[in-house]
Structures are given as structure tokens and as C-alpha cells.
């Protein structure tokens, strides 16, 4: 009568044996995790590129070349200028337009180019901030989704236990193990999202500070020119 039943506890059979709500939770979490990692890699690449282009532009700008030449170099490129270059482009274009008009007050010219730079700066910041709210939501919510799946699974496991006279650990263990998979995946989605969010937020802050200080300095240079 001593029959040892080989209880298949592979991760696949655990997921297949889970109840429908737990499976839905797992599906949602896996999709969320995939998206959050996708955005993490996208943001890693774009922020790195924005920092590199800001470095390049600052180098080009502060070597003291002709501003007209720099402007032509930026607008000549087949693609739209990004980052600091786009702020410079917007400010310098506005300045040149105002300068072409006669009898223009210098303060009005400066004000116009400042507004143009501010608008370009906001667009750039909006691009830099893209997807960060999603990462923040994933980081804060997905542990709760995972916890919900776990609680549901454990509820089921204990409900099944009520029909048994003597509760042994082997009767609840598979149910709890399959329920805990939900928490594990929730944490797997949340931890990188939180880390990435914090890192990207600080990178975006530093970039925005660089953009703003460039705006101030460029305004001063334009003012000196006129």
C-alpha cells in the first residue's frame, strides 16, 4: 500500500494548476513586467543618447565658433535637432527673426527668444519624462497585484484543507507554492521598475538642470551680441 506518488511541482504545472484568478494575475504581471523592461531599455538608450548629444553640443558651443555656422550645421542635418541643440535652434531662430525686423526693442527680442527656448525646453523635458509614470506605477502597484494573486491562491489552498480531518503540510504546500509564484513575479516586475524609475528621474533632473543653465548662458550671449 505504500505508494509514493511523484508530485510534479515544476513551475509549469504549478501555473497550470492554479485557479483562474491567479492565472489572470500572473498573465497581467508578466505582461506588465515585459512592458516595464521594454521601457527600461528604451529609456536607458534614449537618456544615454540625450546625455551624449548634450556633451557634444556643449563642446561645439563652447569652443567659441561662429553661432551662425553652428546654427546652420544643426538645421542642415536631415533629422530634427534634439536636446540642447533643439533649444539652441529655437532660441537662435527667434533671435534672428527679430533682429531682421527694424526698430525692435532689445528687451523684446530677448524676451521672444527666451520664450521660444522655454517652449523647446518643455518639449524636450516631456520626451525625457516619457514612460517614467508607467515605471512608477508598475513599481508601486505590481507587488499588490502579486499579493492579490497570492492571497487568492492561499484562500483556495486552505478551503481545500477544510475537508481533511488532519491537516498536513503536504496538503497545503503545493497550493501555497503556486500562490507565491504570483508574489515572486510581482516583485520581479516591481523591483527593477523602482530602481529604473529612481535612476531615470535623477538623470532627467540633471539633464533639465543642464538645459536650463544653457538657456541662461545663451540668453546672456545673445544679449551681448545685440
Amino acid at each position, binding site marked *: 500500500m505504500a505508494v509514493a506518488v511523484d508530485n510534479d511541482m*515544476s513551475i509549469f504545472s504549478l501555473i497550470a494548476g492554479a485557479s483562474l484568478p491567479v492565472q489572470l494575475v500572473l498573465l497581467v504581471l508578466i505582461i506588465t513586467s*515585459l512592458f516595464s*523592461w521594454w*521601457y527600461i531599455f528604451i529609456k536607458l*538608450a534614449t537618456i544615454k543618447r540625450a546625455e551624449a548629444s548634450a556633451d557634444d553640443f556643449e563642446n561645439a558651443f563652447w569652443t567659441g565658433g561662429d553661432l551662425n555656422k553652428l546654427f546652420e550645421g544643426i538645421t542642415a542635418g536631415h533629422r530634427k535637432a534634439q536636446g540642447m541643440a533643439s533649444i539652441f535652434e529655437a532660441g537662435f531662430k527667434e533671435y534672428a527673426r527679430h533682429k531682421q525686423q527694424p526698430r525692435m526693442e532689445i528687451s523684446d527680442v530677448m524676451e521672444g527668444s527666451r520664450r521660444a527656448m522655454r517652449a523647446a525646453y518643455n518639449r524636450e523635458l516631456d520626451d525625457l519624462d516619457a514612460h517614467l509614470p508607467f515605471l512608477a506605477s508598475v513599481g508601486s502597484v505590481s507587488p499588490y497585484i502579486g499579493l492579490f494573486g497570492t492571497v487568492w491562491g492561499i484562500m483556495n489552498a486552505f478551503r481545500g484543507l477544510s475537508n481533511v480531518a*488532519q491537516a498536513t503540510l503536504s496538503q497545503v504546500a503545493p497550493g501555497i507554492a503556486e500562490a507565491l509564484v504570483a508574489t515572486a513575479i510581482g516583485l520581479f516586475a516591481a523591483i527593477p521598475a523602482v530602481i529604473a524609475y529612481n535612476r531615470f528621474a535623477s538623470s532627467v533632473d540633471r539633464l533639465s538642470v543642464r538645459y536650463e543653465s544653457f538657456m541662461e548662458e545663451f540668453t546672456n550671449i545673445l544679449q551681448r551680441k545685440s
Partner: protein
Amino acid sequence: MIRAYEKEVSWKAGAYAIGVHLVLLVALLISFNWKAAHPVLNIAEVELWDSLPKDVQKPMSAPIIEEQAKPAPIVDEAPKPETVNEEKPAEPKIDIALEKKKKELIQKELVKKELEQKKLDEQFKKDKALEQKKQLDALKAEVSKDKPIKNNTSDALKKLQQEALADDKSEGDKQAISAKASANAGVVGNAINKIQAKIRGNVNKTLCREGNPELMFDIILLPTGQLSGIPKLVKSSGSAACDEAVERAIMASDPLPLPADSSLFSQFRNLKLKFRPND
């Protein structure tokens, strides 16, 4: 979902993201040994009243009859290893031989009566299914009529027979594992007899007077032999007083005697006790 300027990196990022998840899956598969083997709890069935009813007139339920009729196949198997039995010590051999002769006699009688019954039935009825059913019923009645003869044989004899049967099996197999299993079966049988004796001594049989009820209790034992929780009534006798009497007897027998070998305890963890108090 993604901005225009992100499009050129999106494919690469997607591939990385899927890669990360594959790494997680592989890590889950490798780092955990998900396979687990659980031994199923052994359930030994113990019959506390193994003697049979003396009063055949009393109404009997069908399942009981079927269980009583079961010993017949054992008789068919028994003659094969007879040569093996002769090598055994004198006392058990005689007992077994006696038992076998007795059983053979019973069977011959049965066959005779069956034949007579057949002739009678063929005269009266042509419907074969009905006929067979009747034969079966007759057979069962016969068996229960003949059983009281066997009742004279002591418990010890039965035990010996059980052990001899177990030995036969092991010698037939010639395998160490089965030999050990049969040895264990002997010890288990012993221990079950002890449990039987102890509980039987505590039952107030006067409370189970009417009819020939059968009840079944599930009890869960601790390794010390103590009861874990109260015995669970699986099948009632129909009389609450009788059920309670047996339940009290089980409680009074706490702790139950267990074999010294603790490795056999798994066969006693969940005991299903069958009672026929009026036998």
C-alpha cells in the same frame, strides 16, 4: 505607446526585455528543485470483530456478504505452494493443512450445492442473468452458513494463516523486497490484532443489540499511539447509542499499542476501523 524618436531603439529594447525574462525563467527552473515526492499516507483496514454471525436469520446487507465471500479465492491459490509449506515448523504446518482441508471440504460442498441449484433453476427459469444472480445469492448464503464452523478456529490460527500466506508470496517472488514487506505485514498484523483486542475489551456490547449493524471509524494516530483528535464516524450503525459506545471504547483505549519499529508507523497513521459489534 512609444515616441517617434524611440522607434529605432524599440526593437533592440524589446529583445533585451524578452531576454531578461528568459533568464528569469531559466533561473527559476535551474535554481529550484521543483520535483517533490510525497509518500501517500497508508491506510490500514482493521476488522475488530472478525468472527461471523451465528444467527443467519438476521437480515444482512449486501456489502457484508460480499466481503465474507472473499476468502474463497485464497483457497484456490493456496494449494500451489504446498511443497514450500512442508519445510516449515511442524505446528503451523498442521494448522495450515487442517485449515486447507477444511476449506477444500467447504468448497466441494459448495460446488455440489451449486450443481443442484443449477439443475433446479434450469427447470424453472430460462433467464440466465436472473439465474446467475440467484446462484450468487445462494452461494453467499451457503458461505455464511458454513462459516460458523470456521469460527471455532482461534485468532492465532488465522494469524498464522495470514503469515503463512505472506511467506508463500515472498518465496514465490524470491525477492528481498517482497520478503521484507511480508515480514512487515506480519508485524503489522500482530499490531493490528493488539489494537483489536484492546478496543474490544472496552466496548459495551449491550448497547448494540438490535440487528447486525456495521460501523466504520476513521482514527488518526500519533507516533506515540495516542489518538489525534476524536475518531470520525464514517459509517453509522443506525443507532446513535451503539455508535457512541464504540467511540467511547476507542477513546478509552487511548493510547493504542503500536509496533516498536517506528518505520512501520506510516501504516498506522490513518486507521480505518470496521466494527460489527454483534458478531
